């Protein structure tokens, strides 16, 4: 677990980059720090592995204040990925990936096995890339290697500073998907910096939205989208936030909340799996691909049908419900 207790960062005695930030990241949780540039998200991230000094407050990593830990040792136990990948041009891919295990003194066999495993995890062929050099790889491949390198010594915590920010949208999308798959397998505690709210919504278990070094809201993506705490949050997530939130729910969620209707066998039917996201459902309904969307569960049993009205009702319920029990102001 990473705990931030009243953490501040002051530059040159006056400029506050991070202002009294407190929040917790639970074990295995994927937390996105998001905000406009200059909001202090990168500084906050870099204070965890002490690349930036903490001016005030404490960051607690597994019940120990990071200030008390040996900088070199603690960094070797934290995976670190940066935007420009930072691969070492003088080293082969294998040496790059295995740098931390090498520093930790792993033996050759163990290193080799780990390299093969990691390369398979990120979907690159180990033998094909082992002896190659960073400049020979595409941007997407380099960034995958950057992720593999951070995972090399199996650190419990990962810090990622806009790891997919420099990639083109198609490759970025693919790497995001891949990384979510990897995270399902490795279940790291991740702190991830992004300036892109869509990336944050897609990737994070929780989102911490920052402005001028302060946390504006820290919550699950659907809460941030449906119940923005103030005007800044609502503006930052965008006016289409309800549409964005549809990608977070599946038909199953809708079924649980508002229920499905019986379906009409005579009408033109299109069958959809119940784990399909509402965003896709909405798009299908608006496309008028069929008179009815019939929902099937994993075994092909038809559970009921669904119209735009259902989606509307569901979203109203979601936006209307208020987790904190505080009345929402309409902006």
């Amino acid at each position: 677990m990473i705990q931030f207790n009243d953490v501040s960062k002051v530059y040159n005695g006056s400029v506050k980059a991070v202002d009294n930030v407190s929040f917790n990241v639970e074990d295995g949780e994927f937390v996105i720090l998001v905000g406009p540039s200059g909001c202090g998200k990168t500084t906050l991230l870099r204070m965890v592995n002490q690349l930036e000094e903490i001016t005030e407050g404490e960051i607690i990593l597994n019940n120990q204040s990071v200030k008390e830990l040996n900088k070199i040792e603690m960094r070797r136990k934290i995976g670190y990925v940066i935007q420009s990948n930072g691969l070492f041009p003088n080293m082969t891919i294998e040496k790059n990936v295995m740098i931390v295990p090498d520093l930790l003194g792993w033996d050759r066999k163990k290193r080799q096995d780990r390299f093969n495993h990691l390369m398979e995890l990120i979907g690159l062929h180990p033998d094909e890339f082992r002896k190659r050099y960073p400049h020979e790889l595409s941007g997407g491949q380099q960034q995958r290697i950057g992720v593999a390198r951070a995972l090399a010594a199996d650190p419990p915590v990962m810090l990622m500073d806009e790891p997919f920010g420099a990639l083109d949208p198609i490759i970025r999308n693919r790497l995001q998907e891949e990384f979510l798959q990897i995270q399902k397998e490795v279940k790291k505690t991740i702190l991830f910096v992004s300036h892109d709210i869509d990336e944050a919504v897609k990737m994070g278990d929780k989102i911490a939205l920052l402005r001028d070094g302060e946390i504006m809201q820290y919550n699950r993506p659907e809460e941030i989208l449906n119940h923005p705490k103030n005007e800044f949050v609502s503006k930052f997530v965008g006016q289409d936030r309800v549409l964005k939130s549809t990608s977070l729910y599946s038909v199953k969620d809708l079924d649980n909340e508002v229920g499905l209707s019986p379906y009409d066998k005579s009408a033109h039917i299109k069958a959809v799996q119940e784990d399909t996201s509402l965003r896709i459902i909405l798009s299908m309904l608006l496309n008028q691909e069929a008179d009815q969307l019939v929902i099937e569960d994993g075994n092909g049993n038809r559970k009921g049908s669904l119209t735009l009205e259902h989606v509307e009702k569901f979203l109203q319920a979601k936006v209307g419900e208020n987790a904190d029990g505080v009345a929402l102001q309409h902006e």
Partner: protein
Amino acid sequence: MEWHYNMNRNKRISLIVKVLFWAGLIIFFSWAFTNGMFQPIFENTGTFFNLLGEHMLLVLISGSLAIFTAIPAGIFLTRPQFQKAEFFAVNLANLGQTIPSLAILALAMGFIGIGMEAALVALFAYSVLPVLQNTIAGINSVDEDTKDAARGMGLTNMQILWRIELPNAAYSIIAGVRTALVMNIGTAALAYLIGGGGFGVWIFSGIELFDNAYLISGAVPVSMLAIAVDYLFRGMQLILVPKGLRLARQAVS
């Protein structure tokens, strides 16, 4: 296509230059041999080897001292705590290189007197600067993000220096050494003027006596020495610069 065309044109030009160079060299040597221009080497073989020994000793001592002081100095000056000193040193090195070699020799003679020591000091001072400059430039050219990633993964400052900074700066540092030694070999010919010995003895005797044979028997070995050292260090670059960087350089050019 434009790019390919240019590359072909550049290749053609460099081929023409090479052919002209070797043709000129063959013409020169056949002229020199038929006119007995290398006679002094065959007649005074003992003196020739003495001069060669002196010349190489001048270069070897001053050059290696320069390398072994300038590279560590460059490393120190690029550490964050010496940033101000680095600025000072780089400017001093730039300024120092504008001083003519003859002036440095004269200065050394003024302080130390006539002889090999004065020549060594002058040659040392002249060779330190390019090595220092290239060491600093090479280390500073290492990508900040690469160093940041290294630091973030828990490499110590020493490990960053040896595993990241020096390998990535190797090309530039060796290029500096190459420049320094080639210049050193040429400048060592002037050592004669302050009693330092070397091939300058024959070159300047040849000039004073209007004796082309002595002039050429001194000048040609100096040139060949410089070319040999240049090639030697090109070879060193192949060995010492990490393969990945060499490939990257080829890919760019």
